[in-house]
């Protein structure tokens, strides 16, 4: 067939203009969510954990599992038991994430304690940094979330998390993790794990709330974050975390 070069150029040019116009229109008319009582800009969420209060009962793990339908064998939160000898080399166990608590400790006479672990809700999250499509993100109120309808399941974020908080959900085949019970905290409830912790070892905190106990807590206690040299901006603060904890 006899299409001249000129015709092809014209057609190509028209296509390009149309495409660009379409793209611009889409951005302009994109809907915004309606205004409501919970304002994201008023909150900056985190959590504090008091090691001296944790009794390793596993209530938090069970509560999280019930609240968020966490599949068996995967963990949004878990508790580790540390037994640290004089050489500061720890022996650690976490039977099924401590969902049924721990079997009794057979090594007395050694420094031992429990360490609850969960997503550190990092401000400079390495998992968000590596997501190729924008399926995981830090919300404007400081919670690291996963968009379940957008995640490809590439698991790059699982590799990038220094704390082992993420997993691939075996049914949805997308990545899942602790959401800080976002669906609860945005309605004035506390997280399932904090609600069910019998000793108050876990506490949800809101840094932007001037009346939140976190401000006094941080002023009067020695606190640590996990792997501070990773500079992830972790917002999970531990009180009296031993140096041997990894």
């Amino acid at each position: 067939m006899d299409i001249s070069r000129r015709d092809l150029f014209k057609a190509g040019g028209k296509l390009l203009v149309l495409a660009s116009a379409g793209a611009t229109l889409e951005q302009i008319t994109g809907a915004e969510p309606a205004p409501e009582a919970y304002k994201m800009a008023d909150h900056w969420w985190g959590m504090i954990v008091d090691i001296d209060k944790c009794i390793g009962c596993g209530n938090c793990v069970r509560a999280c599992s019930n609240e968020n339908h966490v599949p068996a064998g995967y963990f949004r939160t878990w508790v580790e038991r540390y037994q640290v000898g004089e050489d500061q080399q720890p022996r650690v166990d976490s039977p099924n994430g401590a969902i049924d608590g721990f079997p009794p400790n057979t090594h007395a006479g050694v420094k031992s304690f429990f360490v609850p672990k969960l997503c550190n809700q990092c401000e400079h999250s390495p998992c968000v940094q590596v997501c190729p499509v924008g399926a995981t993100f830090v919300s404007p109120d400081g919670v690291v979330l996963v968009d379940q309808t957008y995640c490809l399941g590439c698991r790059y974020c699982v590799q990038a998390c220094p704390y082992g908080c993420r997993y691939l959900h075996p049914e949805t085949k997308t990545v899942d993790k602790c959401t800080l019970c976002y669906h609860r905290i945005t309605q004035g409830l506390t997280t399932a794990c904090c609600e069910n912790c019998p000793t108050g070892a876990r506490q949800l905190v809101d840094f932007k709330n001037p009346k939140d106990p976190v401000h006094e807590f941080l002023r009067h206690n020695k606190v640590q974050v996990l792997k501070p040299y990773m500079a992830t901006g972790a917002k999970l603060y531990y009180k009296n975390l031993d140096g041997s904890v990894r």
Partner: protein
Amino acid sequence: MIPGVDGFMYPNEIELQWSLLIVLYPYITGLVAGAFILASLERVFKVEAVRPTYRLALLTALAFLLVAPLPLQLHLGHPERSMEMYLTPHTSSAMAMFGFVYLWYLTVVLLLEIWLDYRADIVRMAQSTTGFMRPVYKALTLGSENVSPAARRIDDKVGYTVTVIGIPSAFLLHGYVGFIFGSIKANPWWSTPLMPIVFLFSAMTSGIAAVLLLYMATMKVKKMPIDMRCLDTIGKYLFYTFLIDFTLEMLDLIHRTYEADESFRSLDFMVHTRLMFSQIILQILLGTLVPLALLAANQLWKFSEVNRRVMYVTACLLTLVGIFAMRWNVVIGGQLFSKSFLGYTTYKVSFAEREGLFTAVALMILPFVIFVVLVRLLPPWPERKVS
């Protein structure tokens, strides 16, 4: 006690996330990059001796490139959402550039270069073939049958430019994979600035070895004589590339052993137990030292043609196994130890699942099938004549 776990691992770490298919992907793109670099040796760096492999190398690169996205697609939890990488690429993620680098390399570099180099033959075949292949060749001409000497000289010049652009593009196509691993601060086995460079040089090594083997195989099948000068030159470049690759990997190892930071004890134990076979025996001894010795021998002494051929085939086969082992040790090795440095897990390759052994084998056979089709479609001989 959890089966397969020694010591303590974070509960979510016990199951490996990146499987055999993710070992396969850098291996395949590595072959693409390496084959292309070999082709550019002739086109850009004027190493005339390797001319007989020029077109073959390009077809090898294309055959592997077409298969490259498949292991990734099969690995994704939602392959139907992979378009999202084109819609909303997250610019802070090295993985997001995959789609664009891949398409760039496939179209603007590889397909364009092959088209420009073969154009005269395509036009000739479009005019002379009969039957159902005729419309295929006609389509490949893209409607132009101008093969005047002047047009072909322009093709040559443009092809040269495309190859020049292709070299950094090939580096990017495979180097970004190295960066995907090298930039993960959470994983000390992966996190090193050397990673993209190591990946690149091992890619070049495997690509050159693959083209050498395919050249010998194709000549044997077609009952054509093997150009020994070509083979010796490829062997020489393979030797130098491999030497640099080995030096870089040893540098990484020595550096780690010397600095002996917190991760070292854990990684050292892992290498000596879980990676003993794949790293020490397969990658270093059989996959690197033996081929290097065979190739070095050919630089130092003159062997008979038959002996040289045997040495090259052996060296190249071992090299290909060794570079695969390297990819395995990086990808799988990086997931076998706990980020708490307190434990190790095991990787059991499944057989018939989506990411299992059968799939991997099929994905490695497929490029050779495509290669055979491409060689039929676009015969590498006779080669283009440049006036």
